[in-house]
């Protein structure tokens, strides 16, 4: 490295020739005054820096506000049902209770004009939509099923049951208010058009039931 010193000899000499800069005369006095006053900056630890009131208060306020907003939003979300998540009303229970009534109504539908039947069904559906509370038809369906349970099937005339309007009128004899309900208004029923084979089967079943009832009576 001696070669480098020779190479830069002039620069080195210039730098060495610079006058020395000294501290002022009152350097020690000033230094000791600062040390004794202890007004040098205190080093804060990480935790001290984090929990400084100037930092802690805004962050705590932000956290509290966030919690409050989340809490309020959570309460509101419980009251409002998402319409996309609501399941449609299930009417299967109504159909199940009307199983036998359907067959009666089907019988009725065969004798009644088709157009009138369809109009009645439309009316029934419209009424169903307008009524928010439990529909009248639903009530009547329950009542019908109760009547059917209470009554003894063996005591009924099967022709009356299956063939004409009187059969429904007969059912409603047990209930004081049922007459108005059973006349298809407010009822949910399924219209089934039987073909010839099915009609034959139904007729055969009717005959069997008749014979069974007659044998019991004897």
């Amino acid at each position, binding site marked *: *490295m001696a070669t*480098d010193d020779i190479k*830069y000899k*002039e*620069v*080195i*000499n*210039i*730098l*060495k020739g*610079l*006058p*020395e*800069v*000294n*501290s*002022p005369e009152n*350097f*020690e006095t*000033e*230094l000791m005054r*600062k*040390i004794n006053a202890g007004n*040098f900056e205190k080093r804060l630890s990480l935790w001290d820096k984090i929990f400084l009131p100037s930092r802690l208060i805004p962050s705590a306020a932000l956290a509290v506000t966030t919690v409050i907003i989340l809490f309020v939003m959570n309460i509101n979300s419980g009251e409002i049902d998402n319409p996309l998540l609501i399941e449609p009303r299930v009417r299967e229970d109504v159909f199940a209770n009307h199983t036998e009534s359907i067959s009666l109504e089907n019988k009725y539908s065969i004798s009644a004009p088709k157009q009138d039947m369809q109009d009645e069904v439309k009316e029934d559906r419209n009424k169903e939509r307008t009524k928010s509370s439990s529909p009248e038809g639903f009530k009547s369906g329950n009542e019908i099923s109760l009547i059917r349970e209470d009554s003894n099937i063996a005591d009924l005339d099967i022709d009356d049951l299956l063939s004409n309007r009187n059969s429904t009128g007969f059912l409603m004899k047990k209930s004081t208010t049922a007459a108005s309900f059973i006349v298809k208004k407010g009822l949910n029923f399924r219209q089934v058009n039987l073909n010839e084979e099915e009609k034959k089967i139904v007729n055969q079943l009717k005959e069997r039931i008749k014979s069974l009832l007659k044998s019991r009576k004897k």
Partner: protein
Amino acid sequence: MTDKNFNEFSDEELILEFQRNNTTKAFEILVERYKNPLTNYVFRFLGDYEACIDIVQETMIKVFRYKDTYNSIAKFSTWIYTIAGNLARTEYQRRKRRKLFSIDSYGKEKDETFEIPDESYRPDIITDSGIKDKIIQAALLKVSDAYRDVVILRDIQDLSYEEIAEIKGLAVGTVKSRINRGRAQLQKMLKDIYKE
């Protein structure tokens, strides 16, 4: 122990005395020994006397407060130069950022470019030694930070390459190459002065 004895102590013995017995006199002797070398070093690096005095005082305060962090294996001079060098570099970077910001904002406000006048190398004004010293100092400040630091420690403070390597935390070879690069930059800038 008498004051005379303390004056005969080495730097390392003094700081150990200050560590163990909290002897203020030992600290005062260390301040007396290092105040001028550090002032010279920091002034040549920063070029501002007021700031330089503040930094040297802060260095002494750090020695006073953190005396227990000194490791007796290392040389005291290395330790105190490291503290002063770090503080000086921090101050220099802070000033540089401030200067850059002010120049940048000035240019944007006026929507025009401008140049900072540099008359330090005009041959007609190189007349006496006082001005020469200023020119040398100005040239020194134009040397890259990494090179300037080691050139001052070597050619002005007369520290060995090994000491500089320890202060800067670099390999000796790196220190040597940096010193030579700094010298080369200075030579280029000061050729008009040393040719006179």
